[in-house]
């Protein structure tokens, strides 16, 4: 029972991280990143190969195998995802927007998937990586059962740190510039914002979150293979984002709770329907789609939508204006007589 509960807790926090990363790209900056799960996978694989020791004699084939300790391999996994993002951004972000960018990114996701699935020398192909060392298992004397709750707590701590950092970014002028680019690139450029640079930053930050989220996934399960990141998984993260509320970090926590925990993972623990193995899983995927449609129809802003930032949050106290200023009152001091205006 504790095993089930803490597995759900882990996925809650992990998908919260993933949703925050996608939100900074899509929700804040308007980059429709349909390859998001690819960045998660790169983060997971690299965290794995940084943590695993040399592949010799393991029956697996993979690159690196550096045997680095836990927080370091996770960090490097995030940076690996960022590096891929840098490459992708340099190729795509300068010229492509909205739907065209989405098409290119979804193709990228498919190419990346086929490549990792078939090129065994990279991340062990279709079998994927396994026997990835469990962090802190030896020093703390954790066994298979106690590791799950322990690592769920680690994920909670990591996600809270990342939430803190993300709120900082979103509240800063940098976050505002992201949203300006999202709302109108041409206006942002006309105000002196380097739109490509802004998008690149957002892409890198979001990919770091994707990479770390993926890294936690492989550390939690000890294995990671292509079935874990079918390109359609990107839409689960989008569902978390849209159900929870684009632009709101806490909303995404709610979204992760509703979509990832309650809809996707909880039913997996239900007993099978006799005679129809796997039927629940299929119903489950359909349910996510239905919930998404219902949400977009009835509450497109999400369960816990983005909140407006009002004047006092910028450190100034609003006072009553002496220019009541309603348009048409023309109390403006220098109102001109423009002759016989038409």
């Amino acid at each position, binding site marked *: 029972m504790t095993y089930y509960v803490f597995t759900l807790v882990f996925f809650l926090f992990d998908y919260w991280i993933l949703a925050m990363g996608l939100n900074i790209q899509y929700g804040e900056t308007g980059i429709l990143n349909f390859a998001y799960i690819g960045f998660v996978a790169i983060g997971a694989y690299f965290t794995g190969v940084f943590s695993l020791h040399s592949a010799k004699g393991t029956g697996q084939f993979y690159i690196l195998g550096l045997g680095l300790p836990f927080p370091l391999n996770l960090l490097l996994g995030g940076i690996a995802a960022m590096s891929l993002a840098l490459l992708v951004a340099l190729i795509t972000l300068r010229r492509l927007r909205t739907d065209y960018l989405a098409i290119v990114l979804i193709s990228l996701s498919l190419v990346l998937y086929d490549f990792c699935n078939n090129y065994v020398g990279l991340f062990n192909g279709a079998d994927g990586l396994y026997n990835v060392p469990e962090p802190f298992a030896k020093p703390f004397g954790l066994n298979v059962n106690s590791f799950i709750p322990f690592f769920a707590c680690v994920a909670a701590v990591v996600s809270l740190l990342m939430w803190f*950092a993300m709120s*900082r*970014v979103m509240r*800063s*002028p*940098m976050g*505002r*510039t992201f*949203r*300006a680019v*999202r*709302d*109108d690139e*041409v*206006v*942002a*450029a*006309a*105000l*002196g*914002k*380097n*739109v490509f640079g802004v998008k690149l*930053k957002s892409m890198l*930050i979001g990919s770091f979150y994707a990479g770390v989220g993926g890294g936690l996934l492989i550390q939690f399960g000890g294995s990671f293979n292509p079935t874990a990141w079918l390109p359609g998984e990107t839409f689960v993260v989008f569902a978390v984002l849209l159900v929870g509320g684009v632009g709101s970090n806490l909303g995404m926590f709610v979204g992760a709770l509703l979509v990832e925990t309650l809809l996707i993972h909880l039913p997996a623990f239900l007993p099978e329907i006799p005679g129809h193995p796997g039927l629940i899983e299929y119903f489950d995927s359909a349910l996510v789609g239905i919930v998404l449609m219902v949400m977009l129809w009835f509450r497109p802003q999400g369960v816990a939508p983005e909140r*407006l*930032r*009002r*004047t006092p949050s*910028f*450190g*100034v106290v*609003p006072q009553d*204006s*002496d*220019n*009541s*200023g*309603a*348009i*048409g*009152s*023309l109390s*403006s001091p*220098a*109102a*001109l*007589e*423009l*002759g*016989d*205006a*038409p």
Partner: protein
Amino acid sequence: MTVGGVLDRTEIAALRCDGITKAFQGVHAVNGAAFDVPEGQITALIGPNGAGKTTVVNILSGAMRCDSGREFLGETEVTNWPSYRIARLGLLRTFQLSRELGGLTVLENLLTAPAHQEGESLANVFFRPGRVRRQEREHAERALDVLDIYGLYQHRDVRARELSGGQKKLLEIARAVMAEPKILLLDEPMAGVNPALIELIGAYIVDLRESGVTVLMIEHNLNVVEQICDYVVVLAEGRTLATGRLNELRQNTAVVKAYLGEVIDAGAAH
């Protein structure tokens, strides 16, 4: 009919363009436009519909690249620079159809405008939060002053997309002013607004000139041009037809034929 470089020796060109051409799939929208925008004055850019006025503004502000020709901001050649770099040199523009940052509040629209904000760097956000907060407060105080002047103060915490059409026009100008422009390009700031608001916007533009801003505005309303503009550039078929003061241009048969003669039509279009 002189083309370009027609200012008195005492006047300095804040913005100069020469031989600008731009074709859209064979249609020559701009075909050798050349003129100076004198510093510290209000210059009107007039001409019949399809004369290439908006295309010229798009090229001057960097939103569009020209096929040939040169553009100077003061002494700096900025031909085909991207718009963010031109904006950072102090040339700001507004749009013919208001383009507000709809998801941001009115106050945030203004706060986005200043260039080189400390808080746009990740390092500053995490390691110099005090500096970021101080600058943010200064910007907010100035933004509230600007909003007060433009009569948008009470709407400061409203999402910009919820403003009315006239308020959006004012927000366009207020946002550009917040960026402390040296040169302001206004693309039909008074199109589609009521007569009272036309007067108000006119007054704001004159105030801007008094504070030292150079203004280039596309305007169809000749009353407005007569009342507030110091200098007029007439475009027709993508070329500079004439430059000078409006009363001089009224004597110019080519100008009268191309534009002033059709003033009734142009007025009716509004």
